């Protein structure tokens, strides 16, 4: 299984804080595409460039491979500091 977390505006517009999914995805990009197919908001707000991804708490590009047990997160560009 993969745990997928959503933060900040992304959590709010998707109405979803976290998901548990079987690990059917070769890499982060594959997971992103599968999630974008869930509906118009998912399509819009998960688009590459619109939201960032992290795998196991490290910022990751879409070609980072996924393994069973990984924690994935999607979130808007960060605005701390």
């Amino acid at each position, binding site marked *: 299984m993969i745990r997928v977390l959503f*933060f*900040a505006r992304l959590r709010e517009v998707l109405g979803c804080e976290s998901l548990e999914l079987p690990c059917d995805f070769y890499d982060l990009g594959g997971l992103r595409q599968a999630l974008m197919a869930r509906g118009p908001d998912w399509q819009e707000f998960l688009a590459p460039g619109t939201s960032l991804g992290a795998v196991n708490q490290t*910022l990751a590009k879409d070609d980072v491979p996924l393994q069973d047990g990984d924690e994935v997160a999607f979130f808007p560009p*960060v*605005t*701390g500091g």
Partner: protein
Amino acid sequence: MHDHIAIQEQDFSLTQEYQALREANLQDGAIVTFSGTVRDLNQGKRIQSLTLEHYPAMTLKCLQQIVAEARNRWQLGRVRIIHRVGRLALGDQIVFVGVSSRHRGDAFAACEFIMDYLKTRAPFWKKEQTGNGEHWVEAKAEDQRKADAWK
């Protein structure tokens, strides 16, 4: 390594942070600090308060990586980072970065580098409350440009 990295709701004391950078530290002649506070106007909007959300499992790890990268680039003594989360009022302190070094050039560069990387990589998000409701703050292209300039 003398690093202190904290993510906390409560306020921090610059006095205590400065003391921790300075005491029993005769080898470092330079201390640079950065403090960020909630200002009244941001991107043209008049702010009443803000809420800071983060990704707890990732935040500390990310800041540790940023400090490690700074230590690779410059000769640093002590590094201290505090970032607040939760609800903050106008004028409140948000973030502190303090660096000691033998040389002031290293302390200035590392302190600014840590802030620039924190601004573009650390998983914090600000939501601002105004007289017209609340909204998530948009990331600034300028922050990305500043972070890219260190490459």
